[in-house]
């Protein structure tokens, strides 16, 4: 499973890429592999307020629907509409396929997330 340096990771297998006060969110290689073929993505609305741990969208595979929980609180400022027509990009390029970007309310919440090394250890624990 691919894990990228420089990203933050949640225990729900989401990745976070921080740019200034903005965080891009997606699901990890492990998550996309575990879900299998992704056939549908429900994006949040721009301007929506999300709390830490709240659902910010839904990713659906052939077999099941999974909520995407935002590991950070803030306001949705960008959504990746390309995924509506090409949800399979999440399988192909999980770390390119950001789902939404959130303007952070509280940058300290980032400290609750794992770095790449810790996430690799976390994955080993899951296996």
């Amino acid at each position, binding site marked *: 499973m691919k894990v990228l340096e420089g990203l933050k990771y949640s225990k729900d297998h989401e990745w976070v890429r921080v740019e200034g006060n903005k965080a891009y969110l997606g699901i990890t290689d492990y998550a996309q592999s575990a879900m*299998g*073929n992704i*056939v*549908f993505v*429900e994006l949040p609305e721009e301007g929506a307020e999300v709390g830490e741990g709240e659902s910010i969208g*839904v990713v*659906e595979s*052939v*077999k*099941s*629907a999974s909520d995407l929980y935002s590991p950070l609180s803030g306001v949705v400022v960008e959504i990746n509409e390309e995924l*509506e027509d090409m949800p399979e990009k999440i399988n192909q390029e999980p770390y390119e396929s950001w789902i939404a970007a959130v303007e952070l309310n509280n940058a300290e919440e980032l400290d609750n997330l794992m770095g790449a090394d810790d996430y690799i250890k976390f994955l080993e624990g899951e296996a």
Partner: protein
Amino acid sequence: MKKTPLYDLHRQYGGRIIDFGGWALPVQYSDILEEHHKVRTAAGLFDVSHMGEITVKGPGAEVFVQKMVTNDILKAEDFQVVYSPMCYPDGGVVDDLLLYKFNKEEYLLVVNGVNTDKDFQWLGEHAHDQVEIKNVSSEYAQLALQGPKAEHVLQKLTDTALTEIKFFRFKPQVDIGGIKALVSRTGYTGEDGFEIYASSEDASVLWEKIMEAGIDAGLAPAGLGARDTLRFEAALPLYGQELSRDLSPLEARLGWTVKLDKEDFIGKAALTAQKAQGLRRTLVGFEMIDRGVPRSHYKIEKEGEEIGFVTTGSFSPSLNKNIGLAFVDSVYAAEGMEIDIVIRKKALKARVIGLPFYRKRYRK
């Protein structure tokens, strides 16, 4: 979890094992969409050894089976397979099954894995001294070889002319690469293909022989995930979703398997009355108009009123759209009717369409 005789091979082939009604079986090997397309365009090999096998033998076998199921087996010839629901007196479904007729005194009933014990008990409760009923499930492994290349692949391993096994016919004791197996031209995918019953001890060798014979034809192992999307596109019912204790075969559009004119069978009175009164609800197919994937148990509304529920819903790999099967009040069952599927509290538009979604390509 119970393991089929092929469990070790599934691991070896990279199968992702899940708990399927108490059985450890692979949901997929590579990915569901790829396996689905393989079966539609070439061939796939499935382990369906979780299916139950029950034999009914004895001088009273024909009369007994005829009474237990809704379809008419008197017209069946030897070595013919009949599909039928088996009902409770109130018309609810105990199970749907395949009846393999060897002769009037010997039948093999192939039932859903999760229902095997229940079916065996139900049959036993109605048995008498003219029939002997045995649950022989553990003696059998069952493989399903499905797809347009299925015959080509299997023919390489046998001298038996497979073209002579017609649709819903079978032949016992076929020699497949030195292994004796019962072969029927049946399946659960909407494609041509075979179901192959061999002894549990022979299962692994048989699997490997078929996989090897199929290399040039593009044969791939296929898991339960693809099995479900394939049967769903062909609108073949799945017990627990389109059929259950609380749903009748008439509602599930299986009227062609319910012979109300035959002498007597369990459920006849209730089903006759239901037909006379008209069906309150009906199984329909629908496609999403709005963006969304329907799933089992989602509610269906019309102008805010609840009118039914989804039984199976999915992205359809062959049609490349989101579709579903559902029970709705019969007044809303007409093709073209717009209905709302409630997905995460939002009413999303869908339209009733004809069934099956995917035109079956059986070789008859």
